[in-house]
C-alpha cells in the first residue's frame, strides 16, 4: 500500500540540495548571522535538473528501509518549480509517481499516480512540520527556508571535521513558525569556504535537542554547490535517515511535457 506521507513537500528537496550560491566580497569576519544565512540561501542559477535520490531509514532496532526515486525538476519562474518523481524501489511501490507544480498565488498542484489503481489523483498537502517520506527530515528541513522566518545570532566560530565554520543560532521569528516547524531553535555550522551547512542541531519546543544533521558530502555541479549526502538523526528515538543524491545533472534542457499529468500516468 502506497504511503501518503511519501509525497508531501518533496518539491523542496532540490532547494535543499542547493546549498550555496556565489560568495560576495564583503569581509567575512564582519558578517552578521543574518548575512551569513543570506549567503547560504543565495540561489544557484539552475534551470532544470534530474537525478536519483536514495533514502535509507534505520530505526533503533537496526531495521533498515531503503527507497530509491528518480526525479526531474524545472523552474517555472524564480519562485515556482515543477517536479516529477517516480519510485524505483522498493519493488512493491515501483512505478508510483508524483507530480508537483508550484504556484505563488494558490495551492500547489500535487498529483499522485498509483500503478495499482491505474489512476492519477490530486492529493492534499501536509504541513511543513510533517515527516518527508516517513523519514527524520521534515518538509521544512529539506525545504528552502525563508530568510525572514528566523532571527539569527552569530555564535563563536568553530571547526567541524577540520574545516573552519561559522556557527549561527536560528530562532523562530514568530510563534507560527515555531508551531509549523516544531523547532524552538536551530544551530547551524556553516563552512566558511563554501557557505554550506555541514552540521546542525534542532531543538524541540521544550528546548531539548531533537535532531542532528550531518552533511558528509557536497559536490560542485554546473557551478553550484549541492549537498549530495545528508544524514539526519532523531536523538530522542534513535532513528536515522540518510539522503543521497546520485547521477545529478543540471541544466540539461528538460522539456515542459515531462511535468504533466499525461507523462505522469504513463507510469514508465
Amino acid at each position, binding site marked *: *500500500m502506497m*504511503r*501518503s*506521507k511519501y509525497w*508531501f513537500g518533496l518539491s523542496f528537496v532540490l532547494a535543499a540540495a542547493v546549498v550555496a550560491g556565489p560568495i560576495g566580497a564583503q569581509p567575512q569576519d564582519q558578517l552578521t548571522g543574518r548575512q551569513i544565512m543570506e549567503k547560504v540561501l543565495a540561489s544557484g542559477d539552475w534551470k532544470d535538473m534530474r537525478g536519483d535520490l536514495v533514502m535509507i*531509514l534505520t*530505526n533503533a532496532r537496526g*531495521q533498515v*528501509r*531503503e527507497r530509491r526515486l528518480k526525479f526531474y525538476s524545472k523552474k517555472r519562474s524564480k519562485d515556482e518549480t515543477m517536479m516529477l518523481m517516480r519510485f524505483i*524501489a*522498493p*519493488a*512493491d511501490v*515501483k512505478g508510483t509517481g508524483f507530480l508537483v507544480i508550484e*504556484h505563488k498565488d*494558490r*495551492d500547489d*498542484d*500535487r498529483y499522485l499516480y498509483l500503478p*495499482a*489503481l*491505474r*489512476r492519477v*489523483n*490530486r*492529493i*492534499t*498537502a*501536509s*504541513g511543513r512540520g*510533517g*515527516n518527508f517520506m*516517513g523519514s527524520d527530515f521534515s518538509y521544512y528541513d529539506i525545504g528552502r527556508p525563508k530568510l525572514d522566518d528566523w532571527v539569527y545570532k552569530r555564535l563563536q566560530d568553530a571547526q567541524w571535521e577540520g574545516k573552519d565554520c561559522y556557527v549561527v543560532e536560528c530562532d523562530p521569528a514568530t510563534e507560527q513558525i515555531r508551531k509549523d516547524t516544531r523547532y524552538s531553535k536551530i544551530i547551524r555550522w556553516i563552512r566558511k569556504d563554501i557557505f554550506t551547512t555541514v552540521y546542525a542541531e534542532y531543538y524541540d519546543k521544550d528546548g531539548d535537542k531533537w535532531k542532528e544533521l550531518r552533511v558528509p558530502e557536497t559536490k560542485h555541479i554546473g557551478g553550484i554547490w549541492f549537498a549530495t549526502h545528508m544524514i539526519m538523526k532523531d536523538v530522542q528515538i534513535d532513528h536515522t535517515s540518510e539522503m543521497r543524491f546520485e547521477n545529478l545533472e543540471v541544466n540539461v534542457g528538460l522539456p515542459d511535457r515531462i511535468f504533466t499529468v*499525461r507523462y505522469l500516468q*504513463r507510469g*514508465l
Partner: protein
Amino acid sequence: MNRRLGFGVVVSVLFWQMVSFAQTPLSGYVKFYHHNRWESSDAISRTGTRMQLTVSQTLGDRAAFFGSLDFDVDEVRGRSRFQEDRGANVEIYPVEMYIDLYSPWLDLRIGKQFIFWGKTEWINPTDNINPWDYANISAEIEDYRLAVNAIKADLYLGQFTLEGVFVPVFTPDRIPGMGSGMHGGGDGMPRWFGTSLPEAKLHNGQIAFRLMHNLGGVDWSVSYYRGNQHQPQMRTAVRCIPDPCVLGLEQFYPKVQIFGGDFQKVFGRWGIRGEGAYTRTRDLSGTDPWLPNPHYQTVLALDYTPTDDFGLVAQWVLEGWLKQHLESDALAWRQMHVPYSPEPRRRTSWSARLHWEPANYWSAQLIGVVNADTHDRFALAFVNYQPADALNITVGGVFFGGRPGTPFGRMADQDRLFLELKASF
C-alpha cells in the same frame, strides 16, 4: 490439462520469449493468500499462491508495452460455482497486456487493460468500463476488478483532454452464487433459461468518452458510456426449441447509457471531490417490469489529512430511481414466481475510508459503507505489516450486514477473513 490451462502455458511461453527478446527486467510478486468464509453453506475458503510476472518497456518516445501474467494455484474448498473460471485450481492468465503508442497530440493504448474513471473513492458512478469480481474482494484492486480488451485513445487539445474507449466484447461482473436456486420449471414454476450475454458483435461493443479539463486548480470532467449494465437483471423469455414454446426466465445485461461528471479541488490539508451520473435505460417511462428504470447516483467526498500518519475520506452518496411503477412491477414478478424487492425511490448512503500509519512498517485501513435508510452495511478492514522492504503481510476482513433483501444484507453470507503474504521483486 484443460484448454484454459493449455492456453495459459502457451501465453506464458510467448510472454517469456517477449521478455527474452526485449531484454527487459522482470518484476512482479509472489503472494500467498487465504480467504475464509464461515457463514455460507456455499462456502469458499480460498487458499492459494500466485506469482505475477510483469514486464514493461519504453520503445523510444513513441511506444511502450506492458504485460503482467498471473500463475495462480487456487484451491477452492467446499461447493463452488467458480471451478470453471477464476477459482479453478491451477490457472495462468494475463492480468493486463497492452501496447502504448504516443504522438504529440494523441496517446493510444491497445490491449487488455484496466480503465478506472472517477475522482471519489470506492464508489464511482462514472466508472463503468471494467467489471467487478465480487468473488474476490481483497485489499488489491486488480483482484476485485477484471481487465477488458479495449482501445483507449487520449486526444490532447490544449488544456482539454478527450478520452475515448472502445470495448468490443462485453464482460459481466463476477458475482458469487449467481444463478443459484434456479429451477427446471416443475410444479408450475417458470423454466429457467440461464444467462444471456450480448452477442460478440461489433455493434454490441461498449463505447465511452470523457472530456477532462483543469480550471484554476479544479479538475473536472464530463463523461458518457454506452454499453451493457455489468450486473444482471431478470426478464421473461420464450423458448420454442424444443416445441412447444414455453415462457421462462433468464438473466441478461440490459443496455444503458450513462452520462456523468466529476470534479476535485484541494485546499491545503482538505480536499473536496464530487462525482455523479445519470443512467438512461431502455425503459424511460418505467412501465416495463423487466427492464431497469432510469436512475442516478451522486457522491460528494471530503478528504482530510490532519497529520502525516492519518487520513480520512468521508463520502455522502445519494442515488435514486425514476419513473417507478411498483405495484404493476410487483404483480408481473409475482406472476413469474420471482421474489420482488423494489429499489427505493431514493437511497442515502455514507461511506468512509480511514488510513492510519503509525510507523514505517505498520498501516491500517478501514473502508465502510452504510445505507442510511435500510441500515445495511459493508466494511473492508485490513492491517498491513512490512517486516522488510517489499515484503507485506496483510490481515483483514470483508463484512456485510443488514436485513435480507437490502443491498448488503443479501450478501450477508459473503463475510470473510483473509490473510495475504506478498513479496515483490
